[in-house]
């Protein structure tokens, strides 16, 4: 929305804001100051400080640290790619990668279709739809630590545990839940899905309001049933949002930390050791001093993998998402 002044040109204010020196052809430090350059910088100061100190500098620093040996006592020494090699040859590395991939895959299987089905059903609720979305969002506002610890109580492996009691009514169990190597990871994913599904539901509900209703009417005239309309209209109209939520979910679950840390500390027998838990253990797990080089190397490897994965994903789905 460009503001047009009498001469028919877009007003300078819409492009240059309030800098008053735009008519002056030569720019010197003095004109810069007179034009409010210092004031602008003053307004930017909090942003530059916060991001410079707590975002840009640490990002650069993490690249440097991954090539160094640091223990906070002696000066850092350059070690080339030794940290990366160390992580790569760590026997726990393939375990952590496999577990993280397993978590992400299970989270996709549990957590991807449920919010979509729920949102489509909710968007067709005719009375008091707000109650549905409020209930769905409620777990999202509960502090994650409370959620995990509460589920940990419910996952009690004894027959008196909350979940085992319910399953007992149906003649099942008792199950060991987070105490068994086999069931620990699915148990973590179940809690994580419960905690996060509501946020996805809200995103889908917002996207569903953008579906053109004329398409539904046209399809109805052509004799399409409800499932056909969902398949041929709703899903194609949502595909952009669906693709984005999928990659965001994968990026999020690849960085899962709280669940394995609080539920199982990576156990039993490393069955829930994730990449982030491994980074945490490298840096903070040893009370004698952290291996910060290995920790930053592994976090950069994860970030690099996610960047490459996202690029391939976007490239592969581009034709499909914009068609």
């Amino acid at each position, binding site marked *: 929305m460009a503001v047009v002044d009498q001469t028919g040109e877009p007003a300078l204010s819409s492009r240059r804001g309030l800098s008053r020196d735009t008519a002056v052809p030569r720019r010197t430090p003095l004109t810069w100051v007179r034009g409010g350059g210092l*004031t602008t910088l003053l307004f930017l100061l909090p*942003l530059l400080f916060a991001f410079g100190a707590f*975002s*840009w500098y640490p990002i650069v620093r993490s690249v440097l640290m991954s090539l160094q040996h640091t223990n*906070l006592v002696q000066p850092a020494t350059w070690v080339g790619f030794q940290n990366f090699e160390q992580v790569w040859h760590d026997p726990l590395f393939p375990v952590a990668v496999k577990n993280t991939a397993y978590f992400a895959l299970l989270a996709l299987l549990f957590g991807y279709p449920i919010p979509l089905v729920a949102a489509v059903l909710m968007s067709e609720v005719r009375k008091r739809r707000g109650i549905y979305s409020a209930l769905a969002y409620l777990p999202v506002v509960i502090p994650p630590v409370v959620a995990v610890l*509460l589920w940990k109580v419910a996952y009690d492996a004894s027959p008196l545990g909350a979940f085992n009691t319910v399953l007992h009514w149906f003649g099942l169990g008792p199950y060991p839940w987070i105490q068994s190597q086999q069931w620990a990871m699915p148990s973590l994913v179940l809690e994580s899905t419960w905690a996060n599904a509501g946020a996805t539901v809200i*995103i889908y509900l917002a996207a569903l309001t953008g579906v053109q209703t004329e398409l539904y*009417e046209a399809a109805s005239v052509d004799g399409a049933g409800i499932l056909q309309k969902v398949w041929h209209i709703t899903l194609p109209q949502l595909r952009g949002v669906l693709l984005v939520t999928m990659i965001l979910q994968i990026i999020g679950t690849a960085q899962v930390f709280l669940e394995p840390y609080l539920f199982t500390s990576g156990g039993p027998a490393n069955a829930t050791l994730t990449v982030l838990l491994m980074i945490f253990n490298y*840096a903070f797990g040893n009370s004698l001093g952290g291996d910060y080089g290995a920790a930053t190397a592994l976090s950069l490897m994860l970030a690099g993998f996610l960047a490459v994965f996202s690029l391939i994903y976007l490239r592969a789905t581009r034709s499909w998402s914009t068609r």
Partner: protein
Amino acid sequence: MSEPETGGLISPQEWEKPSIRWGIGGLQAFLLVALVVGGLGPILWLAKGAITPTIDTISHPLGLFPHGTAWSNLKEAWSTVHVGRYFWNTIVIAFGSWASQIVVATTGGFALSVLNPRYAKLINALLLTTLFVPAVVLLVPLYIEIVHPPLIHHSFIDSYWAVWLPAGASAFNVVLVKRFFDNLPREIFEAARIDGAGPFRLFWSIVLPMSKPILGVVSIFAVLASWKDFLWPLLVLTNPNEQPLSVRLPNIQAQTSLGVFLAAMFIACLVPIAGFLIFQRSFLRGGGLGGAIKG
């Protein structure tokens, strides 16, 4: 979510059919039951557990009504287990994080959107880049920076500044606020300038009062995120007397009985849930907004 039901996925004609009416209606009723059980159930269970004697919760975890109440759980959690102090710590941390996010987002958004210097593009690009860097990359170098800050040779471990200041570096907030400022009518800025208002006056008396909706959304999510945060305060606040509730809860579990522990967790949920019930609209709109920006 408020538009009239003229014709969505299911047309009025289709709603007339009994099979669809009952089929879809049945599915929706089932969904409602599932949401009540899954969404509200755990909170109600927590509330019940908070006032139930520990023995009763252990022996009848799913009993609908407690056999006798134990209000003492709440009292014991609040004073003996020091939940009161941790609760206060959580509020102090949330307030400081909120303030730092609001200051950075409003001044930065104002400079980039309204004052718009030549180098704004560069800063914008740098901001957007940080959105694509996973948070884990920052964890270790940020921690080292807090322990050994450059220039200042004084560790910020156990200082609330270590939590407050990094919270301000939220690119998401700046982008959100900047976009809102971008859409404010420029004519008003022009008029104010002609009337002699400088940038400070413009910021304080015109832009900020016009931006209450977006500041509300940013504030809500800032407080909620701070209330939920666990790993960062765990790393930089090592003194238990300074730690927020979320960091203390795992230790509280080891120290006390189940009933008192459930009471402590219930107290930890009160503020977020009350906030959600009061500002429901902003929460749900902000949730959709997050998706739109991330997309």
